[in-house]
């Protein structure tokens, strides 16, 4: 009986999996959102201040609370846009890209959420998920590379943030890659220049 149930369960899952695979390009749940992004001139350089909202889905929260580390990435892209054919067609040259990666995990013993910058190894502890996400979403005074900023005319800085699903544990990865509950990447948002 157990076999039959298992087989039935598997067939059901397989069918669902196939359906999801076919419809994976469908609608996406409410994802991350870049609330604001401003470039400010400080001295001779420019800094970026941005605020990103991270509304996590219950599925992600469940994984987090079960000890699965979640990797966030914030992508920055600086490009130079040239107008061709009277603004009908923009030619963009990407000058600089940067990805900031953070790992958020729950530390059960201390009941703290540990946010670790994977690039620097620096970590911060937060007593609640909301405070951790709030801290994660606050980009303040991020220095922009000065070599591209001598002339800011036509410069475009875009920012977006999402989950790095490839950093998930192997068994979760296929499911996450095709599930809308894990597709939370924000659209590109253009930062405002002073």
């Amino acid at each position, binding site marked *: 009986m*157990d*076999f039959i149930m*298992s*087989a039935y369960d*598997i*067939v059901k*899952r*397989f069918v669902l*999996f*196939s359906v999801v*695979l076919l419809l994976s390009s469908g609608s996406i749940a409410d994802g991350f959102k870049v609330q604001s992004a401003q470039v400010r001139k400080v001295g001779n350089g420019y800094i970026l201040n941005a605020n990103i909202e991270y509304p996590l889905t219950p599925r992600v929260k*469940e*994984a987090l609370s*079960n*000890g*699965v580390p979640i990797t966030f990435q914030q992508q920055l892209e600086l490009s130079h846009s040239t107008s061709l054919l009277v603004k009908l067609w923009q030619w963009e040259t990407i000058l600089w890209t940067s990805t900031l990666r953070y790992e958020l*995990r729950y*530390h*059960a*013993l*201390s*009941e*703290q959420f*540990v946010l670790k910058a994977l690039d620097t*190894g*620096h*970590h*911060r*502890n*937060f*007593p*609640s998920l909301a*405070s951790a996400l*709030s*801290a994660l979403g606050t980009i303040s005074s991020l220095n922009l590379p000065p070599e591209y900023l001598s002339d800011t005319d036509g410069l475009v800085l875009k920012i977006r943030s999402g989950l790095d699903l*490839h950093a998930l*544990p*192997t*068994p*979760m*990865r*296929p*499911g996450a*890659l*095709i599930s809308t509950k894990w597709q939370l990447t924000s659209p590109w948002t253009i930062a405002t220049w002073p």
Partner: protein
Amino acid sequence: MALNLIKRLSSGTAPYFSLAALLLVLAYLMSAATEDSSRLNDLFLIIFGLGVLCLILLTAILIRSLLRLYRDFKREEVGSRLTVRLVSLFVLLILVSTTIVYSFSVHFLHRGINSWFDVNVEQALDDALDLSRSAFGIRMRTLLRQTKMMSGVLRDLPEGDLNHSLRELNQLSGALELSVWSIDGQLITASIENPAIMVPAKPNEAIFRQLQQQQDYISLDPGDNGELQLRAAVLMQKKLPSHPEDLVLQVLFPVNERLSSLGKTVQDAYTDYKELSYLRKPLITIFTLTLSLIVLLTVLTSIWFAVWISRRIVQPLQELADGTQSVASGNYNTQITVAGHDEIGFLVRSFNQMTQRLTQSRNATQRSHRLLEQQTNYLGAVLGSLSSGVITLDDKQFLKTANVVSSTILDINLQHRLESPLNKLAENQGHLQDFIQMIFVNIQQHSSWQQQLDLYPGKRHQTLMCRGTPLPSESGWVIVFDDITTLIQAQRSAAWGEVARRLAHEIKNPLTPIQLSAERLQHKYLPLLPEGQTEPLNKLTNTIIQQVDALKEMVNDFSDYARNPELQLSNCIISDLINNVLALYQSNSKHEISLLDGSPSLTVKLDSNRFRQVLHNLIKNAIEASEEAGLSVVVELSYDAIQYNHNKWLELKVRDHGPGIPENMISKLFEPYATNKTKGTGLGLAIVKKIIEEHQGIVWAENIHPDGACIMIRLPLEDSTP
């Protein structure tokens, strides 16, 4: 395009092995992709998608193969039934075995993965975590009190001593770091035990928010390297002139190294277990999906392979069936391509040998048959050219063979009566009754026999000489018979000829002295006798002279009959010849002798003198026959050229209107002294026959209805004669 691809993939042998290899690679990749540390992890979905594509392609190919098999089965093509049976058997085996293996695999997969997790272990880990928290809780409460005390101490101090007191408190408490912050996050002062660290760790916003709500903060903080430290933060209830906001004292305490290590172990174990437990479901799903896909691919491939292998197995059998049908329909040259070195190959080779042998023996049989036919034809030709009739009977007295002459002699077409019982031959053929009776009587004795037999076919008399010889192994009889009627007649004619010659020779010689002596007696003694007595002497001597004349005449006839002069052949116009003879009979007005119209220029090569004698004898015979019967003499002659037996003949008929010929006389009419007349020597018709036969002709007599008889003569005509 896709149909072509499917068609090409599902024909020949290479695609089967290519697909099998591809599926093996796919199975390996899928299994590798599910491993935790594999670089193929990220490709899992692509590999899985490829697997599903393969599955769809394979399903299409398999459906096509099965449809083709179903179509063959419906059309009842040779071998399709066996193929269907084999495929069904294979499919059943594959499905049963795979289902069992698959079910057990899934079951063990579930049980195996679930067995990693245990309620007791989970509870123990929860308890360990709680215990750790409790252990740290006591310490945290102590440290919080200590921090509050420090805060009390610092609160009462003037701003200038704050830094110094902080260092002292740091040394006294053994804390890692003491720092004073304004509530809006500005650092006032700090004391750090580790001289390498210049800036103290800033409390995060959440701590400030909590402190603003008048709640002290104490927490266990994981450090950079996983070591633990305790962070306590309290409001100092003190405001500095330079900083009017509330001040916050934050103290970082170290955790005992042993305790930290234990705490870290508990944390790691708990987190790992929790994560693993959480990943259990997706793990099972992934494994089961992979397993299911591989199993499905394997099953479909196996079924496809089953169809292919069944067709391969059945193909030589199919060819064998076709070959057998071909042999059954008479085509012995059928050869089948040898399939391999297994039993079926052996069967095919045996079949080929059998057909070769059959061909050889058929050729041999045909040769024997031809030889037999030649011999039969040869024998038939020999038998056909025999003047004797030859028939063979089998052991049940059925007529097996009969030559042409036998049919001619017996005056019945035996060729139409082959394979019929002998006694059936006599039906409607009364004259054969004696012949068949004689055969039945003689074959009882099981040894060769010989017998002469007289038959009366129609109104003729026929004498047969029959000889019977049993065939080897008592398988029947061969019966040879000759028509010796002509031979007997010839013998009789020869005997008569000899008698006639002797009579002519022995009797004729004394007749002249007798006649002369009688005349001398009459001449010498008649004058000497008295007048009254001369009459008897005259009468007696006249009688002697007349009788001697008669004897002479008879002897002359015999002499004529016995005479065998050479023929003086010349071309004669037959009508002239007949008319010359008829002219001699025109003087008697009572006799009506006429020649009916015939071809006036018909020329025949014959001895005219002897043929005149024939005509005289026939006309005289006809006249005498009519006169003796007291009938008026009416004789009609007619002649014509006819075609008989591939030759031209002159047919001459001499017909009278007399009483006809008695039935018993007809067959003997032309023999010497075979006469019923009062006049004549009985040699007239015998002489006719003799002369006609000397001319290579034939003569016979027939009675004519309603009255009279007819003598028929046939003489051969030259080819050039019109």
